């Protein structure tokens, strides 16, 4: 039996009919065709599917879509501000060479945002812990850590 789901996606209200077994990732990618959120491992191990749910990072690949009823979901597509400016974390990732293949990037940026929103001036260890659920095979993480540090120092 299909169910009606309402939630706020990147600031815009969404109402849709979905099969109750769908994950948040399936709703985003397959139903709404928003492919910025990536599916890496499909079991919550790699973090490529990270989105923000009421500001906290979740693995959308294992998150039941119906659980977001009435809540705020932020994906990589919603990070630019209304004037079309990159978010400071996006800018810092570019400046610090924190992107290679880029597949982990959307999830990594959202984990970084969740971290900095909660703790604007994290230590290096707190940064390492904050992104420990996001695997990157290309960069070796250090440029990502530097980028997050740079953002935290600007605020």
């Amino acid at each position, binding site marked *: 039996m299909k169910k009606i789901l309402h939630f706020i996606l990147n600031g815009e209200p969404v109402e849709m009919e979905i099969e109750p077994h769908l994950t948040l990732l399936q709703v985003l990618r397959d139903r709404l065709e928003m492919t910025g959120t990536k599916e890496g491992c499909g079991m919550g191990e790699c973090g490529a599917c990270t989105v923000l749910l009421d500001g906290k990072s979740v693995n959308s690949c294992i998150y039941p879509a119906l659980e977001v009823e009435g809540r705020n979901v932020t994906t990589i597509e919603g990070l630019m501000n209304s004037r079309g400016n990159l978010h400071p974390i996006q800018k810092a990732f570019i400046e610090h060479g924190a*992107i290679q293949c880029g597949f982990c990037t959307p999830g990594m940026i959202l984990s970084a945002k969740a971290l900095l929103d909660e703790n604007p001036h994290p230590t290096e260890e707190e940064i390492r812990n904050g992104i420990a659920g996001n695997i990157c095979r290309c960069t070796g*993480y*250090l440029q990502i850590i530097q980028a997050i540090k740079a953002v935290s120092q600007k605020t």
Partner: protein
Amino acid sequence: MKYVGIGIPNVDVLEKVLGQARYGADLPSESPLHLKVVRSTKPHAKIVEILTEEALCISGVERIFTAKDIPGRNLVGTITKDQPVLASDRVRYVGEAVALIAAENPEASEEAAKKVIVIYEDLPHVTSPEEALSIDAPLIHEKGNLLLEFHLRKGDVQTGFKEAEVIIEETYTTTWVDHAYLEPDAGLGYIDEEGRVTVICPTQNVHYDQKEIASLLSLPLEKVRIIQSTTGGGFGGRLDLTVQGFLALATFHLKRPVKLIYTPEEVFQVISKRHPLKIRYKSGAKKDGTLTAVEVDILGDTGAYASYGPTVCIRSAIHATGPYKVPNVKVRSRMVYTNNPWSGAMRGFGVPQIAFAHESQMDILARVLEIDPIEIRLRNALQVGYETATGQPLMASVGIGETLKKIRIFTEEARGGRKDESREPKIKRGIGVSSMWYGIGYTGIANPSTAQIEIHPEGEIRLFTGVADIGQGSNTIALQIASETLGLPPDEIQLIHADTGFTTDAGPTAASRQTYISGNAILRASKDLERKMIKEASRLFGIGENDLFLEEGKIKSRRAPRISIPIKEIAKRCGTVIRGEGTFDPETTPLDPETGKGVPYATYAFATHVAEVEVDMETGKVKVNRVIACHDVGKAINPKNVIGQIIGGVAMGTGFALMEEFIPGKTTSFVNYLIPTSKDVPEVIPIIVEDKEPTGPFGAKGVGECALIATAPAIINGIADAIGKRIYRLPASLERVLEAIQKRKMKSP
């Protein structure tokens, strides 16, 4: 220089940071059919029958393909064509493709895949190279289980060992390692507007894919088009076909869009792995540390199919001496088929494995002879003029000595830091040194690249390259090289890349070859355009060609400084497209089949790493605190990207050293295949040495694979320094380290 040597951000970062880059599973398509591969559950069996009736009854199933539906040659492989796209009469590993479902939705194709019944007749299977080589071993391929045996000879090792004052002989073992790129293989197939069977997917070599698909479908090359999608990592795993054959076969028959997305578990099961090597290594040296001889025996497991097995077999042998002067060398390297998962290309083609052996040996020699680990390497380091084990005299750009000298200060600093280790008695600290060399490009065979650059009357400049950028930044480097030559910023040049519909063969993104080889092709194309623009300007303005030169995108006159005409203006006046073309093939010679003599590579990259580690003596846990990584890259076209490769390579090397182990039948996903996270990676101090390669574009060589090679042996040597016991089998997991510590306790050191 204005554009070369500058760490500009990669040209594709904006779309990546916005989530707009289209990876294999992101490609849009109007109501495609969804494919699913039916895979073997047997390691070695005859296929008696494939029953598809029940599966075909499932609503939404359009068609089920088997080997019988392949119109052309059902064998692929970059060197040895021995691997079917769909198994016809026999399967040789668990996970081999047997049938392909096409259905209206993913659920139907998955359901149908479960309902296909394959009747097998089991064959005895082989799980180790030793077993595969025994006389009564079951044959995995008709020609026998020995895929290749390669020999390398220099001087006389018997004499060399007689001259030696110390001889060290040990065995080193490595295991399967997964590329673990994050993006599961996926793609789209369709017939394009020109009627071509078109596949768009992540890949490291569109032109290789095109040849294989044309042969598979028995189509002329021009009827097949391969486009690289944004590629979520490669590391060698995307040099062989992944989804291409299935997408192309279904598109060919069904003439409508098809989509295939591998499950993450499928990626782990069916994509190639790093070759496990068993290396018996004997070194002889004088008391002053000078090497007199090495004798090496390498036995590799290529699994069910050849893939890059021959490359790994030969390359590991050629690199067996390490970056050292060894007067007497004898190497035997064998690569063997088994029914294990197939191994292929993975970042370094066997060199990371052999470096683990030669650098462990060097470390043992240093300890036995009580020579500083940097000093013993310096005494043996290759130099310009020396002949390598293949008899190749090194002509230039041998920066190994420089990397050792530059890094020496850090070992001294690290030793100072060890003194406070007594504060926590269960933690032991150690420092490990390791060096490496790596031949750029394919081994002793032609591996050319081509490129074109054109300027249109409307002023548009287009650079064409077949190079697949897999995240390392080759697109950016291509533009930097063209920009430097033409004197125009990269954003004024449009790049068309890795689409066989528009670009010509650049060879694979492999063997750290794209900057050197394709970089040269792009440089030559740009120089060719420069010449042609000067010629046109000379014609248009009646000035001698010798008086004209190109600077900042303008043709200028030496004698009349007033004259300064933008090349775009010249193109406009000409009214036609002006096109520069370039090809480059490094100068190599084939290797002698008996002795291995020849010139396998035109140039080599060098590096030295120092790892500072701490070992928890109670748990066996190793923590790598810092790695200093000094690389001779010839010239860093984009230093930011070079550093990116180095830091990423150190992370992958740390995984190779300490945690990565694919266990056939047990490893299924990232849940049980652990790679370094942000909490595991060490601090890295990258140091770039630029010992320019005269034949390289602006002096450049390569770094992609080189970045990883020296890390694992540096860590292993660091562990030995810390605990006084050595790890001979990778990875140095908690259990292995603890076992080594306990052995130490039993036999006092």
